């Protein structure tokens, strides 16, 4: 419809625009130093570190059990994933064998968290593009999931529920019934979002063909998660490198096909998240029906004191694959804990894919990458 002007003919003198740390659509405390000629953006330098709490220095003074609430605070929109990823890493270090019930509950919790996180990503993306109503609808549905979480863990956002070696509590009595009710309520809602936002002409105009990320650029920048799958690469850790019990469930990995524009544009990244929600519902239904019973705290070691050594474990969160590199030398405190944050790498690709677009497109591309600053700045 409208191809962007080729940049060379603009040549007007450049202006530095400071989309500062406090801006309505930078998804957190992120500062974008944008060099523009008029509306066209020629270079973006994301400046981060405003939310840096030196999580890794904290971990060098906290015991393994005490680190779990801190991992929640890294990616506060997908706290369950962080706890799960950390617990898998520590269990790999201790090589503990978990009872099946714990694995099932963890998968159920993670898939609910994935839906909740994608709901916020979709709502916020709609808000960045200008539609306000989808944001309130997605948040209304997310509240239902948070109520389920509150029922199980007591907290709505930062759960401290998945501990290395097991879980903090077992499921409450009729949790299964409530979650199945929620899934029945939620399935038709996705069709409603589709009608309101996905197939809306203006939305397509604003996001199709915008910020196209080719395959090689994505891999070279270490982009992972829905943003990578939007570029057409069917890489999902739960499918390619199955951890925990994901190999028991059949679900497929949605990939961007460039329906509304070229493959790898913002619309694809957005639509992959919508399809992923459907897949998560499929996994949830299977998991909820097959959940065995047993004691969730049986494999929990009293005192976590892993042997000397290193481990690097990967986990598929809502934003990409988070990696925990833990070095321990026998004490109950890790000597070094490094968290490879997916949004950190996803954000680094911003300059590459948004040069030549207009300012309102930078907001769209940033929204489609779905970054969370707590996880980037750690």
């Amino acid at each position, binding site marked *: 419809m409208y191809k962007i002007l080729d940049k060379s003919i603009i040549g007007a003198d450049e202006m530095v625009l400071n989309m500062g740390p406090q801006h*309505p659509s930078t998804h957190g405390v992120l500062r974008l130093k944008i060099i523009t000629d008029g509306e066209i953006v020629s270079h973006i330098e994301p400046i981060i570190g405003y939310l840096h709490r030196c999580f890794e220095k904290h971990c060098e003074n906290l015991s393994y059990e005490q680190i779990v609430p801190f991992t929640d605070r890294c990616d506060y929109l997908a706290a369950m994933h962080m706890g799960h990823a950390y617990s898998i890493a520590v269990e790999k270090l201790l090589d503990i064998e978990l009872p099946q019930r714990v694995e099932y509950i963890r998968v159920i919790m993670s898939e609910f968290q994935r839906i909740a996180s994608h709901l916020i990503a979709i709502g916020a993306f709609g808000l960045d593009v200008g539609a306000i109503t989808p944001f309130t609808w997605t948040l209304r549905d997310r509240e239902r999931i948070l109520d389920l979480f509150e029922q199980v863990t007591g907290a709505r956002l930062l759960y401290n529920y998945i501990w290395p070696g097991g879980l903090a509590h077992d499921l409450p009595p009729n949790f299964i019934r409530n979650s199945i009710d929620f899934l029945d309520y939620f399935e038709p809602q996705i069709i409603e979002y589709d009608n309101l936002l996905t197939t809306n002409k203006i939305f397509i105009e604003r996001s199709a063909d915008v910020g196209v990320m080719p395959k090689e650029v994505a891999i070279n920048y270490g982009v992972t998660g829905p943003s990578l799958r939007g570029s057409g690469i069917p890489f999902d850790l739960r499918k390619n490198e199955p951890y925990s019990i994901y190999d028991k469930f059949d679900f497929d990995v949605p990939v961007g096909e460039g329906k509304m524009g070229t493959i790898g544009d913002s619309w694809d990244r957005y639509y992959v998240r919508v399809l992923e929600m459907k897949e998560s519902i499929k996994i949830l239904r299977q998991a909820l029906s097959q959940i065995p019973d047993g004691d969730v705290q049986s494999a929990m070691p009293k005192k976590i004191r892993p042997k000397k050594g290193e481990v690097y474990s990967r986990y598929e969160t809502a934003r990409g694959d988070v990696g925990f590199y833990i070095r321990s030398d026998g004490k109950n405190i890790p000597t070094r804990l490094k968290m490879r944050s997916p949004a950190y790498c996803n954000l680094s690709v911003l300059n590459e894919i948004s040069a030549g677009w207009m300012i309102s497109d930078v907001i769209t591309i940033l929204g489609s990458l779905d970054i969370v600053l707590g996880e980037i700045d750690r």
Partner: protein
Amino acid sequence: MTSIVDYLLNLLSFIEIDTSLLLIFVILIPGIGLFLVMTVNAMVAVYMERKVSAFMQDRLGPMEVGLLGFKGGKKFWGGIGQTIADAIKLLTKEDIVPDNADKKLMLLAPFIIFIGAFVTFVAIPFSENLVVSDFNIGIFYIMAMSSVGVIGIILAGWSSNNKWSLYGAMRAAAQIISYEIPIGLSLLLVVIVAGSLNLGDIVQWQSNHRWFILHSPFTFIAFFIYFISVVAETNRTPFDIPEAESELVAGWMTEYSGFKWAIFFLSEYANMLIVSIVASIVFLGGWLSPLAILNIGIPEKWMFLDGPILGFFWLMIKAMFLIFVMMWFRWTFPRLRVDQLMYLCWKVFIPFALANLFFVSIWELIF
């Protein structure tokens, strides 16, 4: 179509002060009347907008603030006094002026926009004989006055010395000026058929024949072109690019707060009222009751629904419905990008408007 000003002039002619003083006094009365119309309209429209947006987003909107103890309905329509509370808050809020902003221009900008809207009301007939001053060049005057607001917007954007406002002002300038052409063309269409610029005559023509919207398929399309470009004229979604919340923080209104921001708000809703009244007068048969066009043999005595008093209500109902549609747009659509906005205006509306002009004139020849 006697205008209020002449009516008052000969009413008060018995006072023997010299006529120019009397004229000023006589003009003051409708002036205050118009200002009241604008403020009341803003109050009602803001409350309606908050409630409509709330229900569309599965929430309840303002429920707490009451008026003299009456809190409004318990179930859904509470919070009647919310807009009054907002108005008082805006008036008492500190009016921050950034230090290296151009203070005089910054103070001037909101009043230019306000005057742009205020002056347009003079030529708008609220009912058969309720018009402040009856111009025989009605539509032309309204078109001219409604483009005064642009200057105020650009002034506001430039004088607040902030990159975001500058962006907002540039975008507003491009948008409003380029959308005046489709508006002009579609109004021109009506003038060709009705043969006169005077709004009264246009409504008169519609009462003799049919409403313009039903006159011919081309005027039907012209109504939609007019309506959508008028939404762009008043910076409403999906064309609210000048004050895009998610990109430009608040566009050209970023540095304003308190009283000056209230003036912007007031004139935005006043503009909405103007354009919806003009749309209903020109296309939807002004103060003619819809029963007339049906003319399915309603007995004669029912025609009394058409008198000057009731005419006012019919006009207001049509205008309110159009304002509701504007709000409906706001809570459904995302925002267009600046270049898509320009594409829509120059590549879609203007060609269609010109085609309409051509085909309607042929239509006139045939029928």
